[in-house]
């Protein structure tokens, strides 16, 4: 399983000289499975560059949306494959009692917010609510579960052979709870992340910022570290960086995260910050720092 980070930013795109190294595009992670098939996790503005990197030949791909906040779907109408008739795209996302996934996404892909309508997209696109039980895409088994965030929001777990990826980019598991003391089965997202090869998790706020953002659906650094300690992934990437966090600020947060992680008994090198353009091969045993390639 190979991972590429196409967008690591949360909330809103934040391009500029202060965010060049960690990137300014919003959430999107490309996952190449063992048979070569491709999954896109979320469709923030990062998916635009993913689309540009794909060959123009006929293809089938799956997009797994955690939720429909704009920073997770904004790139859909700028994703080149949706304008190719020979492309088949399956978009998975959370169910809502209010409207179907297609209807809710169409609120964005429609006038006046978009120059095109969903029905006008040339590709063969279908929309599916994630099932309650795991399902298969190619060689992978996929599981979705609701996690603590604002509005219907999912986390995903992807198991391909003996490798596993947990993706929970928007998550506030410590809202009203002490996740260091709580029983495992009462921690939001626990089963998804438990003993994963890689956990990609919300790392939006520094501890000092969190008190002013309680209930906004994101984690402080302490919460992210505690969640990773409790769930035990081999490696954790903090993701969904706050748009106000410059490269320098994120460097400092990364140093703090690593120091606190190892001080608490975590394996050195097992926690880092997501970098736009960074790649990971989960088969690679050596711990190479995640850097834009």
């Amino acid at each position, binding site marked *: 399983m190979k991972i590429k980070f196409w967008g690591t930013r949360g909330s809103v795109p934040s391009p500029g000289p202060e965010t060049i190294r960690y990137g300014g595009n919003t959430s999107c992670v490309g996952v190449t499975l063992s048979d070569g098939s491709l999954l896109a996790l979320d469709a923030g503005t990062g998916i635009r560059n993913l689309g540009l990197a794909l060959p123009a030949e006929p293809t089938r791909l799956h997009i797994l949306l955690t939720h429909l906040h704009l920073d997770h779907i904004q790139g859909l109408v700028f994703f080149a494959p949706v304008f190719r008739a020979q492309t088949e795209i399956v978009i998975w996302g959370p169910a809502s009692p209010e409207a179907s996934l297609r209807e809710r996404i169409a609120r964005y892909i429609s006038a006046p917010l978009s120059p095109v309508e969903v029905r006008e997209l040339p590709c063969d696109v279908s929309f599916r609510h994630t099932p309650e039980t795991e399902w298969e895409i190619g060689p992978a088994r996929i599981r979705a*579960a*609701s996690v603590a965030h604002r509005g219907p929001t999912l986390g995903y777990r992807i198991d391909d052979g003996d490798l596993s990826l947990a993706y929970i980019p928007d998550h506030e598991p410590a809202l009203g*709870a002490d996740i260091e003391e709580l029983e495992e089965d009462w921690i939001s997202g626990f089963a998804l992340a*438990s003993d994963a090869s890689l956990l990609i998790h919300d790392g939006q706020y520094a501890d000092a910022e969190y008190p002013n953002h309680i209930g906004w659906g994101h984690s402080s650094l302490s919460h992210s570290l505690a969640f990773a300690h409790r769930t035990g992934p081999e490696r954790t990437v903090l993701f969904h960086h706050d748009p106000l966090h410059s490269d320098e600020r994120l460097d400092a947060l990364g140093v703090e995260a690593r120091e606190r992680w190892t001080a608490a008994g975590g394996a050195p090198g097992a926690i880092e910050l997501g970098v736009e353009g960074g790649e990971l091969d989960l088969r690679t045993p050596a711990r190479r720092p995640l850097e834009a390639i």
Partner: protein
Amino acid sequence: MQNASQKPLELILARNLMSALSTPAFLVDEGGLLVFYNEAAGMLLGRRFEELGTVGPEEWGAMFGPFDGEGEPIPYDELPLVVAVRNGRPAHADFEIRSADGTRHRVEVSALPILTTHGSQGAIAVFWPASTQGTEGR
């Protein structure tokens, strides 16, 4: 696939809310199993949830009741939490419960089902001291 168990998010959030309330509150899962009650409920019952743990209806009934005005046990099927879980409808009743030290408390109970896009996940019940005018017949 991982083996870790996981409560539904709606129960997790309900528990988090209940933990912050000063009103006695109880939480059951979709099978009617009592999976949590808060500190205020623990004070009413005389036992903290951490001491008791998850219990089924028979064990719960043997320890705490509830009882009707004649002191007779109320059938499990008639309890507001059970009605809420099974029927997906809110339910209300008043009855007596027995705390760990044997003291009886008359309470009013309102239970709400926890319904999601995946169906019923359980129910939450809030206990209030019974009003002096009574609510029998509701």
